[in-house]
Structure formats: structure tokens, C-alpha cells
């Protein structure tokens, strides 16, 4: 079982969370072209090793988190809020 250290709730089982997706995607603006959107939503890297991914603490604090996880070992290196302002708050409170 993957255990995710939620910055708000502490370490919890992954069953409390829902997997989101690739956290490194920069979604284009809404008026961007079909091509840009196609690249953003259909093309994914297949990373062996650490990747940044979003997880939603859906059965917890409802926050979306960026989790740096190894696809090989499930080791988790870091967990941060997705929202940049909240990242700062969490950093400052460390």
C-alpha cells in the first residue's frame, strides 16, 4: 500500500486518495488551438522512475497534491499542495 504524507492531514493510506494524472502538464489557455490541447491531454510520457503526479485527498481534506513518486518502487520523495500559494504556506509553516 502506498502511504502518502498529506501536508494537511499527515501520512495516510493511498485508499483515501484518488489518482489524478501528470502534474507537469501546463494546460494551454482555453482559446488555444486544438493541436495544443491535443498535446496537453493525450500525449503522456511513460516514465520509469520518479515522476510528478497529482493525487486528490478525496476521502480526506479534499486538497489536490503533487506527489513525486517512483513508478518502479512506489517510493515517494515529496508531497506538496498543487496550489502555489498553498505551497508557500506549507513551506513557511515547516
Amino acid at each position, binding site marked *: *500500500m502506498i502511504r502518502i504524507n498529506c501536508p494537511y492531514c499527515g501520512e495516510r493510506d493511498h485508499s483515501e486518495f484518488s489518482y*489524478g494524472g501528470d502534474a507537469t502538464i501546463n494546460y494551454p489557455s*482555453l482559446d488555444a488551438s486544438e493541436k495544443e490541447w491535443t498535446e496537453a491531454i493525450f500525449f503522456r510520457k511513460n516514465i520509469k522512475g520518479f515522476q510528478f503526479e497529482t493525487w486528490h485527498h478525496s476521502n480526506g481534506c479534499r486538497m489536490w497534491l503533487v506527489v513525486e513518486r517512483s513508478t518502479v518502487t512506489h517510493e515517494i520523495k515529496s508531497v506538496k499542495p498543487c496550489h502555489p*500559494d498553498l505551497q508557500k504556506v506549507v513551506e513557511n509553516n515547516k
Partner: protein
Amino acid sequence: MKTRRLDNYGKINRDKILSFRWDKKNYKGFEGDTLASALLANNIGIVGRSFKYHRPRGIFSSGVEESGALVTIGSKDRRDPNVRATTQELYNGLEASGQNAFPNVNFDLAGINNYLGRFFAAGFYYKTFMGIPPLEWGKGTAIWMFFEKFIRKAAGMGSASGLPDPDTYEHAHDFCDLIVVGSGPAGVAAALEAAEKKLDVILVEQDSLIGGNQLAENDFDNSQIKNQLENLGIKIMTRTTAFGLYDNCVVGLLERVTDHISAPNVNIPRQRFWTIRAKHIIVGAGAIERHISFNNNDIPGVMTVNASKHYLNRYGVLTGKRIVIATNNDSVYETAHQLSEAGANVTVLDSRTNFEIETNKSFEIRKGYVPYNINGSKKIDSLDISKSEIINKFETINCDQVLLSGGWSPAVHLLSHRGVKPKWDYNNACFLPSDTKENITMVGSSRGLWNKNDCIASGIAGTTDALNRLGISKTNYFFPKPGGWKNPIQPLYEVKYKKSRSKSFVDYQHDVTTDDVRLAHREGFISVEHLKRYTTLGMANDQGKMGNIIGLSLMAELLNKEIPEVGTTVFRPPYTPVSIGALSGRNVGKHFRPLRVTPMHQWNIDHGAKMIEVGLYQRPWYYPKENETLSDSYIREASTVRKTVGICDVTSLGKIAIQGPDSTEFLNRIYSNGFSKLQVGKARYGIMLRDDGIVMDDGTSWRLAENEYFMTTSTGEAAKVMSWLEELLQTRWTDLNVNVTSVSEQWAGVSVAGPKSREVLNNCVDDSLVVTNNNLPFMGVTSTFLKGNIPCRIARISFSGELAFEVYVKSDFANTMMDLLWANAKKYDGCLYGLEALGALRVEKGHVTAAELDGRVTIDDAGLSKMASTKKSYIGSAMRKRGVLKNNDREILVGFFPTNLKETFNAGTIVCEKNNIKGQGIGRITSVTYSPELGHWIGLGFVKGGLDKWKDTNLIGADPVRNKQMNLKVVSPHMIDPKGERMYA
């Protein structure tokens, strides 16, 4: 073989006599016995028949690796098949029977399979199903398909009862600093050391007693150890198997709570499924003694040496009279000595020629000898032995038991669950655990240590390792070197039989012989994983605990490679079988999944509602009067709504509060239609698309104030929409000042629909002016009070196509609201209506729901192009016209009538052109209902090209599942009141 109980041996409680039944006969045993030891004490040698050949099988071991004594325990709904008699504790009244035999294990009709062996060789089933003419029969597969069902029946192991499991099971959770698996000398030393260093420790032992393999020693007493452990506050869990290791130091345990009790308290679960979250794991799971492959090495009376020691010293059972021990290592000599002291005549065949062993000469040692062939069928008559240098029959020894020790395999299974590959150790002829970066440390004989002192030292070192890794200490430590015998082991896996058709078993339970491994090699199945699947080696209950290494060594020899080059199969959880009941725990029957009810659930039932499950929700389905059927009822309800008024609980819709200065901008981005100009006090129907341009959900949003909206979603997509909005706000549009809150549980909602709905509401609100057509026009919203000063929100929204309102109150007021509305609706001959009538009304009106919006449909497909704004960009706008979504032969929403209006049809019907009834046709019907308004069956669905293309064509509705076919007419989906005059009334 003559097995018997000795007076002065064993740690069983002879004051407590237990009676039990084996194959319908009564026997006696003692408290502390396992079923296996009790059977042996009663001189029962044959306890099962083998899987393919139905050969008589006895008890091979004294533990979890057992692959012979698999029996069925209990009867009727408590029948439990494939239980290892070696680990089943005896209790008073235990009922057990042998498996895989008819009429019984002593006389089994299918024993003839033994002589048909060549038809059951490795890959037999594969060849059969691949259609290759099997062997010299020459004919194809058909004949084998005919026989297959008989073969399957003949080859089955014990069968499940087929009845609901009467026992309860429990899921439990715990956490600790350190979990120690195994209570042998290493595990105990580790646990004690850790507890002294103030770690919170759980010690897990699969046996009923702690001690590990020390329980086989004649002078072992675990009471002092137990006291020590308890005094240090260590949680000891016996009868508990660590069946799997998972990510982040999570350990799965199965605790057998009542499997050893004759009449367990019904309030106690039979088994507990534990999830332990630890910071470090120490595995001292021990090692398993291997057998040796040679001809007829499965005759009842064959056993591992260590098992015999267990039976002697723990259970007081001497397993043979004239015993031959065959070995290649030092571990057997203490046992040989003890067996001969106990009165057996013992001969040791040691394959090694050059070694020194101190003995008291109470038994004979034949240096350089190996077992060659056992004579006998249901019992051992004698053993042919051979010199190990030149394998051939050499001499015959009369004996009734053959004990085997082909070396020891450390139990590396748990580490293997973590994907850590073991490494082969040539000196000790076994796989040893490799190091891992994870917080797991292997100790004791599971890291190849054969001496007790080394095991203890490794336990302490293991805990030091744990403390270092946890950052508690920084202490140097070292593990003793693997091994520990005076003389080196000499690898011995197989003694080759010189005649053809040998029955040298590698895997006892699945009847995999050395010939099968060679056959697999000849046929090209040389990878370990292929070998395993082709021969089923290691796929039985014991998962190859005894036989895997032998199989590997044979393949290595065939390939002219070393064992590590051949590889090792990956062990996967569970270490020993886990019952399905334990996996499901309490999540059975009504507790299979959570149940959601609306706050007026009881009110609905009290007023005659029959309920239906929608997702997790219970919703009113229909409200039958007297003898009404479902269709009587929903047709009456739907007609009443069209005629006067109806009331329907719509609380299950998702409800989201959207607040903040950027709320309007937010809604404008997520909905496909414009929201920027929605006035305060108005609601709007909206459609959300996914990023890829497909429809995600539809619903309404009500503008309650400048910066506050109340959103409703469909019942099914409520959770998904909520997560989606949170994702957008937290990951993409982090500059928007918007807060979203799920208020689904906080508000109870009801739809009041029908021409008389305004009158009803009029009577229910404090200020009747608020619901006039002027003050509350179509899509108008108001926050007001129901009579009795109950705050409420009302929107004039229609799903039925009638003049209709949705009324929401705080959940606590739900019943009051229902009482009030219902009292007034009755005055107008109104009704309560359920989901079935709601469905009928919306199909008549051509409104889509989840049946239509199935994740493949675009906004244009759903006939809602007008809802796609061209004046703004929104989620999905860039993608909704991409590639195939532009095709003009896409399936478009339409209505369907049966050409013959007396006919019916079902959802799921495939729409086809008249002379082309096949495949996926040109469309499908997604929702159907009887239309009370039109007086016949109608449907909603999709057809390629839509209404324009097919409106004058007779199409065919094909329903192959129900064997139906009917003529269809395509009509507009808006089957009644297409201009919406009723809604605007």
C-alpha cells in the same frame, strides 16, 4: 508404516482427550495435537490422493509447506477444503475427510490414472486446448473436449460447500515501530532487543505456540521466553500469518481466531485480516527442508527429517519403526539420534563420502549412499539404495519410513513480495535474501543461518539495523556468515531412475515429476516462468515451498547452466492461502457497500414508496396503490403529473455551493453555454464538457447573489464534478478567487411538477406572491420561507416538461416540507412519483440523462448544439470538433416509436437498416418507456445521421439478447410539447 504415540515424549496435554472424526470414523487425540499428529498417532498413513494420478499420499511435513495432507475440515456450510492437516489444530468434535478420492483415500477408483500417466504429462491441458492432436491418438481436439469435463471432475481437489459462509470475518488495523515475523530464536532476539530500545513491537507467529523450529526440540520450553516478551510490552500475535509485504512497510496478516475451537463464540470473528503499518519489518520466517526426487518418493511414509523430529518431540509420535534417513547435509544427525533413542531402527544414507560427524553409534551411517527407489504402493515395503557416485540400484533395505533432507531453503518469500530477487549461495545450496533499500531486514535461518547462536546474533543485528535505518541509533553491527554446519552440504536434488517411466516427484500436490520438467525442456519451455506454467510446478497450495529448487536444479542441468542463471520464480502474496471471507471482512450482504438515503427516506417509505438503488442511493422507484404493479403505478404517476401535480424526492442530485468574486468567470469557463450574463435570481441549465470535448455532465446553476451560486449536478456524476471543480481551482486556475463546497447532504430537494404545482406551492410558502409567474418566471430563483418559518430555495425548473419547481430546504426540515407539500398536493388530486415516472416524463420530453450521456457523446450528438457557445472559450471547446467528432455520420439523439404502436421494445435494442441487420447497426436505443401521454411505447436513442436522414424510413430494432425484432420509426426526441408551452405556463 507403523506410527504410534510414545508415553514419554511430546508436549501435548494428555489430560485433555479430544475426539475427532476422520473419513466418518471416530478417533482420539490430545490437546496440543494437530490433525496430522493425531492421524499419525492413530496410525493413519494415507490421508489423500494426488491431483493427477490419484496416488495415495501421506503426511510429508509438519508445517505450512505440506503438499500431501490436504484435507477437508467441517461439513455443510462450514466445509473448508484444502486445509493442511499439519497446521490444523485438533479440537473436540473436529470432522475431517480425505480429498480427491472416490469412495475414499484407501480405495480410490481413479487410481487407474496412475497407469495412464503419459496422458497426464506436463502440458497435457495446453496441448488439448491448442488443438494439437494429442500423442498418438491422432484425432483432433473434439474427442478431448468431450472427455474434458470428466477429467476436470476427476482432477479436482476438495470442493467448496457452495453455501453462504455462516462465519463472520473482520478487518483490523494496527501500527507499530517494528513488526517481527517469526518467533524462532532470531525473531525473539530481535523483538527483545527492539523493545529494550523502546520500540513499539509486534511479534507475529503463524503457529499456535511461539518458538519456531525450537518446538521440534526435546528440551524446549517457551514459557520463559513468552514472559520475557510480554513483560517488555511486545504484542504477540500467534496463529497469525504474515501473508504479504506491501509498499511502505505495510504488512498483511491473517489471524485465525477460532479455527482451533470446537464451538466458537458466535460474536467472535472466525478470522481477522490485519493491515499493519510498520516503520520497519524484521523477517525471521525460518527455512524449509527440501525433499529429494527419486522414484516413488511419494509413497506414504516419506517425510522430511525435521517433520519427524517435530512429531517425536512436540507431539510424542514416533513416525516409523525401521527408518531410513536420506540426506546430503549435517542437519539430520540429531534427529537420527533422537529417533533411535525413541526406539526406532535408524539408518542414515548420506550422499557425501568425506565428512566427520560425532554420534553415539546408535544408528548406522552409510556414507556415499543415496535413495534410489521405494518399493510399495500404499506403504513403504523397502528402499532400494545406490552409491551416490554410480547411480544404479545397489542394495535393498527393509524399512517402513524414509525421511528426506535435501537441504534447506530459507523462506525468502516475504522479501520476494517486494520484488527483491534472492541470490544463489553455492556453499549452502540455497537462495539467500538480497539486501533491500526498504526497511526490511531478514534474520535467522531465513538468511541461511543454521545455528541457534548465529540466529540470535542475527536477530540483535537486525534490530540494530532497524534502529540505524530509523535514525534512532548509529551502531555498527554485523550478521553472522550464512551456513554453520561442520561439513559442507553436497547438492543433491534428484537420483535418476534408470528405467523409463519414473515417478520421481518434484511437486507432490500437482504430481509434477522430474520427467515432466524434462519434457517441458524438450518442448522449449525453458524459462522458469514458462516451466512453472507448463508443468504447474509450484502452483499448488504450497506454492513450491519444497519443490521449486529441485525443479530449478533440473532445468539448470538440462540447460547446462548454474541454478542462478536459470533464475528463480517470483513469490507473490499470499505466503499461505487467505480465505475469501477474510478478504471481504464485514463488507458482505447489506454491508457490501455504503448505503445512502435521503433525509426523507423514511417519509417516502411510510407513504408507500418502493425503493430502488441508484448508485449508492436509495431512491423512491414508484408508489403503488393497492394492487398496482410497477407499470400500473408509474403510468398513473406520470399521468397525474401531466394532469395535476406530483411530488418527487430529488435530493440525490449533487449540490455544490460556489462562492467568491470570480464565481461567474469560473462557471463561464466550465459550462459550454454562457453564464456571464446570468442575473441574480435566475437559474440556468448548463452542460460541462471534459477536456477532450465529450459531455461530462449537465445540471443547473442558480445565481443566489452577486458572488454566490448553487449548482446541481446529476446524481451519478456528483462526486466526479466536485473533484473536477476542485482540481481546476487548485491546479489550473489558481488565480481565481472561488470556493467550492459540497452541500449535497445539507439540502433536501423535491420537485413539484404539473399544471397545479404553482397552486400547491402557493399554499405552502409564507408569502404567496413569491411564486407568481411575474415574480418567479421560468428559470427564476428565490430564497424564501415555507409555512412555519422554514427557509427554502425555490427555482422554477422543469425536467418533466410541465410547469415545475425545485424546492430545497435544510435537510433537517425535509419531513416537514414533505408533509406540507403532500397535504396541499392531495387537495389537487396530486400524487407522489418515483424514478420510474420521472424517467417516463423526461423521455417523453427528450431530456437526456446518464443513459444517453455515456462518455462517448458530444454536445452535438445530444442535439444540444445550441448549448455550445460560440462567443467564448470554455473547457472542451477546443476539442469538441476534433477529428472524428466532426464526422457527419455520427450517431445523433432521436426519438423512436414502434411502427406498430402496439409493440414494445427495450433499451439496448440495436437500430438497423431493413436489409442490413448485423453488427452494431446504425444506432441504438438508450431509454424506453410507455408514454401515458401518447398511449404507446417510446424510446430515446441515437442513430447515424439523426432525424433528418431517417425520418421517413422504416428501420429495424434488433434485440438479439431477448430474441426480439420490431419495426421502428425515427421521430424528434421532443415527443411532447416541443415548444415548451407547458413549462412557460
